[in-house]
């Protein structure tokens, strides 16, 4: 899970989920606590989907 996905591609990650921002990849301080938690849940859900998906090559799982 990474904000700068070109770096994930360069280093060779196979399952990549784009995130929000460098200092808070899995959150957004501009949101309310509840909204932020929901956002994080959505992102982690996507990561779990990526883990259960068969990939043949480096893949970016857009959220």
């Amino acid at each position, binding site marked *: 899970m990474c904000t700068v996905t070109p770096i994930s591609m360069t280093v060779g990650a196979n399952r990549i989920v784009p995130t929000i921002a460098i*200092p808070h*990849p899995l959150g957004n301080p501009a949101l309310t606590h509840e909204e932020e938690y929901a956002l994080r849940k959505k992102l982690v859900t996507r990561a779990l989907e990526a883990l259960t998906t068969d990939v043949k090559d480096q*893949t970016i799982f857009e959220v």
Partner: protein
Amino acid sequence: MSYRVVHYINQFFANIGGEEMAHVPPELREGHVGPGLAFNQAWKGEAEIVQTIVCGDSYYAEHEKDAKAKVMEWVKAAKPDLFIAGPAFNAGRYGYACANVCKAVQEELGIPVLTGMYVENPGADLKDKVLMVSTTNSAAGMRKAAPTMAKLAMKLMKGEKIGASCEEGYMPNGIRVNFFEKERGSKRAVDMLLNKLADKPFVTEYPMPTFDRVAPNPPVKDLSKATIALCTSGGIVPKGNPDHIESSSASHYGEYCLKGVDKLTEATYETAHGGYDPVYANEDPNRVLPVDVMREFEKEGKIGKLHEFFYTTVGNGTAVASAKKFAAEYAKKLVAAGVDGVIMTST
């Protein structure tokens, strides 16, 4: 008096034969054999190959200890000013033997050594230990390799200063030397950019590390039974950073237990990471390591369980080699603990 050189070659370059003769044991011959002639010619009498050691590639690979001992015995007796091996081009066992005997001669006898091979030859793994000229991948490159090696060899024998790898033709060996460039950095960078835009050749002054590629692992079959671990390069550590993970160029990683931890809080965790504004991660460390969400998924039964340890380091300026070493170590721990999948977060 001219400098005295001992040369190491394989059965093929000694004209004994190819693969069918690769089993021949080491043999000592007087004078030059095969490619040694080209070295002698390039040295124009200033140096001379006094003896040539010939060894079959398979023999060396299969009897490394004996073969090396024999070579060392002969080189020690000959007391040459230089030991030269190859060039081996892309012949794997030959390259390995060249690099390996050179290393032994240099370290055990204190005699300068030089070899040459193709950069992808397995023997080139020793390029940081043994000076080796970069050659083409086939013996067709001998005409170019021999003079380059001969010139560098002469400098070694005379004890002259060795220039940069790009000038002398050897493989970069990780040694950096300070020097003044003729033109300032901004000018060089703009020249490089203009060449790039014009599709002209240019040489970077800061090559990127080469990253390996791994085949994707098969997917996790059943999340509801899976153990999922969290790892991060975002520097999340227990408050106070007990293992003193550096804020940049981390020298180690941390392993921390999550038993009984429902979520990360400002009071209990923080980030050790430099280079990004740590305010948001310190305020709510779940923004980097999502323990809160993973605990909810665990309770719901969406995942089997959250692994009880998380692994963490600081990615800021950390060497690729260090990161690789950390991961190789904790990946083993994850596998041993029966972890099925890992979510790695990075900042």
